[in-house]
């Protein structure tokens, strides 16, 4: 049978590619892997689409997240973009704030960059568990208001929130520093064992059980003092 494309034989078929094509392709491959990891995490951890905040589940989710992303090569821009994908839900069929925040925290903790800034004020959704187990030597700056359990389990890193936090800020933190430029919610510093939390605005209430560490409001030490209730 005749080749109907005969006349195009002489045309070179390899097209001119700009560096842009390579950059975009590479980035999309990484994003696909990150997304795949997140979806796998959600499917395993959230069988009934309900995820309860229990310490063991949080730890399990974090461990699974770390396992997913350990071998990935990504940069802070990828983390930012992943947050945008979670916010827009274009490629993510279900966004569950708890596991999402844990996954982001894993990405931050395992990133090669020491200083990462996330512009959360651009997003509609609220993320919880950001800064979970932030290790020593890492600084995470969150621009905008954040959800609950921010800085939970902080492990020596420096967490700066340029906005307000939800409840349970710094819950169970071991060491490190949390700076909140606006307000903090209830049960701030609950179960903390070390480190410092500095809040420039209001604190709705301090956690009832503090094992160590300090909480400051506008440079004034609030805990350890057996104080609870709104200040």
């Amino acid at each position: 049978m005749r080749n109907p494309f005969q006349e195009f034989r002489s045309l070179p078929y390899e097209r001119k590619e700009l560096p842009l094509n390579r950059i975009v392709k590479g980035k999309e491959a990484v994003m696909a892997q990150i997304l795949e990891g997140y979806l796998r995490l959600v499917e395993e951890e959230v069988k009934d689409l309900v995820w309860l905040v229990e310490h063991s589940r949080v730890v399990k989710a974090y461990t699974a997240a770390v396992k997913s992303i350990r071998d990935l090569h990504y940069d802070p821009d990828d983390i930012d973009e992943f947050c945008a994908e979670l916010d827009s839900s274009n490629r993510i069929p279900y966004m569950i704030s708890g596991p999402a925040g844990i996954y982001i925290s894993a990405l931050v903790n395992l990133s090669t960059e020491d200083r990462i800034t996330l512009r959360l004020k651009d997003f509609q959704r609220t993320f919880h568990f950001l800064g979970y187990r932030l290790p020593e030597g890492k600084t995470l700056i969150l621009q905008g208001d954040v959800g609950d359990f921010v800085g939970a389990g902080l492990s020596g890193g420096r967490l700066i929130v340029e906005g307000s936090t939800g409840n349970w800020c710094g819950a169970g933190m071991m060491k490190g520093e949390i700076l909140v430029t606006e307000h903090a919610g209830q049960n701030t510093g609950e179960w903390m064992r070390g480190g410092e939390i500095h809040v420039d605005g209001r604190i709705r209430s301090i956690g009832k059980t503090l094992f160590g560490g300090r909480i400051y409001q506008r440079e004034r030490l609030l805990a350890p003092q057996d104080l609870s209730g709104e200040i």
Partner: protein
Amino acid sequence: MDRPSSKEKDLLKEIWPRVRRRHLYPELPHPVWEENLERVALEIKEKRISLSRGFVEEMSQVMDEEEVVGGLLDHAVSHYLYCPWDFSTHLKLYSEAKRVLKDKQMAMRATDYFMDVVADTQCVSQKESPLPRLYAHVKRGIMDEAIHALYQRIWGVNLGVEGYEEVARKLSRLPYLDRRRWPETIRRFSKVVQSLLEMEERFGGLNRPSPMGSHGLQNYSSQEIEQGLKDLAAASESPAEFKEIVEDFEEDLLEAASPNERGMGLGPGRSLEADILYYMKLAENYNLPIRKTPMHKSGSLYPHHHVPWEVGRPFQDIDPWTSFGKIMPGITQIWERREGEVFGEDEGTPDCIVMIDSSGSMINPRQQLSYAVLGAACACDAYLRNDARVAVYNFSDANAGGAQILPFNRHRFEIYRAICHYFGGGTKLHLEDIEQLQTGRNPDIFLITDMQITNLEALISYFNEHANRVTAVHIGDNEHVQTFRRSMKLRKNISIYGVEKKEDIPKIVLGKIQEYFARPSG
């Protein structure tokens, strides 16, 4: 003003055909030289490209003049060919940028820059263009530096920009050449460049046009603007969303409005009534074709064509002339007769009275998309396009002055203004108002309501006494609806449609009109 020299004219005459051929012959008029372009290299107005003589002369000192002109033309043609493609896309991009930046000026600048990046990158990726060499020498502001730093990364060229690493890195990740993802891409683009735009604003650079010109409405024909508004209306979820975007372009829209649009309330000296414009444009997405003059059989037979005569066929239809006086098979021919088909009398389209309920139980059309108003709008357009007249009776609590009557006319904007009016009160109509709109030739009546009318019984009696074709579209179901249905059951001239999904209203209205147009009113 000095006219262009013959050397300049020759330069354009030589380069423009090459650029056209390179871009596969875009339908653009021959570019011209312009003396008075301040601070920009080129301008595009209604597809005409104007090149700044001053800019070209200045750049010719550091690079070849032909390359300067070629690069500028490549840039201009790429905008036409690739981005923004049309006014509708321009509006979509702007609305996404505004969502992030929240400021009109910044959103416009971000959109301009985004479109530049897309158009230039497309050009450089597909053609051998002198554009990179041009950019290497052009004067830059803050944003221009950042954009050129981006170009260095994504084109793999050296434009002599230092710094802006982080911005360029973030911007280089965006899929500029994937048209389907432009809305998402410009959002991310705007986020990244926001701080730079704020810096430009602080230093007063935001009002300074980009060297390659800005992209206002003057680039589009009035037809493109109309189409763009239509697409924007269809894509907007509410009149408020449409209004927010359109009002930012109000001055340009009013300036650019064609004579037709001026008749509809747009044009210099008038303010833009974006809510009404929204429904006007949205209804245009539901056009019914113009009714053609019907054909019908004439009822009489006439000789149509010849067929060979066969033995056994009757003799009376033999054509002696074409048979040459012979009766023999193969020579003799008879007439085959057919009933003629002629164009019927064009009965014309009856006028239409649109009765629209704007009581408190109906949606306020200025705040949310009201399918009731849209259905009424579709009905109006269908009749107006067939050269009929439309009257509007917009009712809420007529006793308390909540009624608006617009007599029969063909003024589209006024009709829409009447339809879009929202009273938000009770629901009672005055039958005398409807009666005064009746003409000798029974107009069609379209009633769109939720049937929670206080004097429904009176309305039922009224319809029973009149021969107008009535189409009643009601939203929801209630006892009043049941009453209405029961009372109108035997009336052949009255059709009642309940609507489950409000989105079906335009289809119902248009379906009924199509039926009416197929069989003229008796």
